[in-house]
């Protein structure tokens, strides 16, 4: 029982032993730093220069220039802010909602438990991306800020997590020490936060990293389809420009244009995936035995 608790603290020290988690962490950290400090280091000029479009990568333009003749590297760096901001907050909210409802569903029995279960089931059966499109259209003309957009995205991301968490909680709650707490008449919040939460915490952390991918795809998709507020350096918008507006795939000398955007998107998602995989291996003793 306390074994898992120990794992949580040990996990952090074990962190350095797991290469995957480490690399994933470095990639994410790299982009987070880019998001925070990038715009102070790499200045962005959005002034178009049509005659200098599609310049190949060079020292002056590490990623080349785009259809407007604007430096792609500077746009990627400056766009990291919205990309990271949106996907991080979205996954945070998704994990928050998923955890709370998941624990409630797992712990509570009776009418309220069934109600929570029904809510989870409903969100599970509604396909998320189409629903998100509709939500975005509904709120499209009401100037949403980043937190609100993240909430809308998170609304369609949390359900699978909640289901998994509730399954975990259900298997934990039958354990003796919870029974003991119940017999001691401990208040609900005590049981949930002191007894159950620490046990599912590593699991949630892993999921946070996993959610990054979903959140990235959703937010990029939203921007890509022009349903969220326009930020011309958001990678989704950049990709939209590259593929649909500029038709870069059909222009051999523009190959670098979508390439570097996709590269960065993939690298960030990849970072999230292997970070999650690494964390999972670190926290899950069963997986660890095989290293």
């Amino acid at each position, binding site marked *: 029982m306390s074994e898992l608790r120990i794992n949580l603290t040990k996990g952090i020290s074990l962190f350095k032993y797991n290469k995957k988690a480490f690399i994933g962490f470095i990639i994410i950290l790299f982009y987070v730093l880019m998001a925070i400090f990038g715009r102070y280091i790499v200045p962005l000029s*959005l*002034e*178009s220069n*049509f005659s200098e*479009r*599609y310049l190949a990568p060079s020292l002056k333009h590490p990623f080349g220039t785009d*259809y*407007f003749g604007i430096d792609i590297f500077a746009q990627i760096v400056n766009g990291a802010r919205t990309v990271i901001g949106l996907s991080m907050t979205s996954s945070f909210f998704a994990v928050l909602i998923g955890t709370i409802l998941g624990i409630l569903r797992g712990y509570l029995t009776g009418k309220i438990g069934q109600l929570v279960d029904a809510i989870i089931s409903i969100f599970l059966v509604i396909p998320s991306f189409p629903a998100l499109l509709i939500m*975005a*259209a509904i709120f*499209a*003309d009401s100037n949403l800020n980043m937190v609100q957009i993240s909430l809308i995205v998170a609304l369609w991301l949390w359900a699978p997590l909640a289901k998994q968490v509730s399954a975990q909680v259900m298997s934990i709650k039958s354990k003796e020490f919870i029974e003991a707490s119940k017999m001691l008449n401990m208040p609900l919040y005590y049981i949930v936060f002191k007894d159950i939460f620490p046990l599912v915490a590593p699991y949630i952390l892993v999921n946070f990293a996993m959610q990054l991918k979903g959140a990235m795809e959703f937010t990029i998709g939203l921007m890509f*389809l*022009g*349903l969220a*507020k*326009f930020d*011309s350096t958001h990678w989704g918008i950049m990709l939209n420009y590259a*593929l*649909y*507006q*500029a*038709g870069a*795939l*059909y*222009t*051999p*000398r*523009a190959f670098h244009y979508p390439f570097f955007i996709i590269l960065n998107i993939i690298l960030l998602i990849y970072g999230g995936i292997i970070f999650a995989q690494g964390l999972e291996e670190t926290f899950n003793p069963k997986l660890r035995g095989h290293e």
Partner: protein
Amino acid sequence: MKKTLIKIFVLFMSLTLIFSSFNFSFAATKKTSDLKLASDWPYPFHGNPFGPGAVGGAWWFVYEPFAYYIPQTGQYIPRLAEKWTINGSKLTVYLRKNAKWSDGRAFTAQDVVNTVAFIQAMWQWPYEIQTVRAINPNTVEFTLWKDAPTSFMHTILTDGAMGSLVPYHVYSKWYGQARQVAELGKKIFYDTQSGKTVSDETKKQYEKLSSALRDQVNKFSPYKTLKRMPVVGAYEPTKIIQSEMVLSKNKYHWLANKNTTERVVFRRWSSNEFVWASLVSGELDAAHPNMPKDVVEQLKFINPNLNVKTVSDLSEIALIFNFNNKLFKDLNLRKAIAYVIDKNKVKDVSVWQANPAGQYYTGVLSSMQSKWVNSATLSKMTKYTTSAASAENILKKAGYTKKDNQWYTPSNEPVEFVLSVYGPHNDWVLAAREVVQQLNKFGFKVEMKLIPDGMRDQVMRSGEYECAIEFGSAWWGYPHPMTGYARLYQWDIANITAFPSKEKFNTPWGEYSPFDLVEELRVNINNSKKATEIIQKLAYITNEYLPVVPLFEKVLPIYYSSARLTGWPSAQDGRWSLAPGGIERLYNLLITEGVLKAK
């Protein structure tokens, strides 16, 4: 057990793959007498001309207007009509004697009368036609309503719906009903227009009758009920699936002998990439997608048979202002914006093939300006050559100040606003992006906002924007400056911008309200001397008071392939200008007359 299933499946898949690679051929439509195009149409296909989407891209192939009008030459090419005469408010059309429906029945004046009754009943339009009667089987006489503009004659002659939309022998069942609804609708319309009150009872009766008719007619789908759709045009839709639509030659068409193209095959225009890909691989003979410059060069390189001809779309893309916003009520600011924007750069980034907006913003399309606005007028007007200095002068004179590269109004508020643009229109988005960039650089704080798919109308009409990219002057329907001015001062642009067009504006010829000028122009449209005079005044007001700032004149790029077809007109040929507002007209004209044919 499971394993065997999987094995069988894998075997099956690989077998089919091997099979399929054996007899591999591109779409079986290798017939050389096909014309292959891209378009959109409703599927499941109803063939109902009153249904939304109607017959899609087939429209101009299956419905014939009385005549085609070539804007560049001002010439009418007779189609269903052999000739026509105009006598005051009467238009007499002499129908082609050898015109037949595709099921072999003769096309008569009765069909025209029937069509007008039906569209008036179904669409509550065109009430401008007060009566239509068949003088004899080959002659129809239209009488215009007294207040209808004479330009409506043009609409009657060139609109594809007017003559052959509703075959009498197919729709005769509802003719009486349609007639009744149309007459009642006309009466209500005329009464309302002349200020009389219409009783609720009449209105209710109209609603009842018209919805009863609409229910029946909309449910009737000729394509499904009759298994065919008798049409008077050169082609009849015969086979329709979601991704392709086949039109087969009407062998009774009066030009059937000249026409050597057996079929018109449409592929669905599902995405621009798809059309690009189809053009490159020779799957299409012609299409008109927006294409960035480099893509065009590359496509021409891969498919050397590809040519491009650009024709004016008879419209311009403009920056429009919300005049309820006090920032834009100031003419000085609008003028400054007009000076700041580098139109050529905007054009390059947005649609490289477009015509630049020119240096005068007269409301007359820049490609037509020399024809309508005389040099004497031009010399009186402000010339908007891109110049930040001129803009600064105007602003400083008006009391604006600049601090830290940010302009402030005389009342010391920062000049900041949001530019809204309709997301799905790529070229607009690109133009907006460039405009925002230029204005920001000058020292206005401008942000950009995308209007989501399907929301353009909502945002524009509710006035929930500060400034936007929209069509400015546009000459669709009736290719004449009047159409553009009507848009700017009476219709949609006036509605959404709230430009005070009824106010009087100072001109070298005195004070005029543009709203009244447009009315006057409408009345005098056939009086070319008077019309030109009025146009000079409107041009002056438009240029000096800037209801909108034009960015570029939109063009339609037509990509056509000479791989399988011969006879495409030369680049100078006026017939290309038939394309805007119905590009299929151009193809139909060329193939029915046997100009364009298979090699």
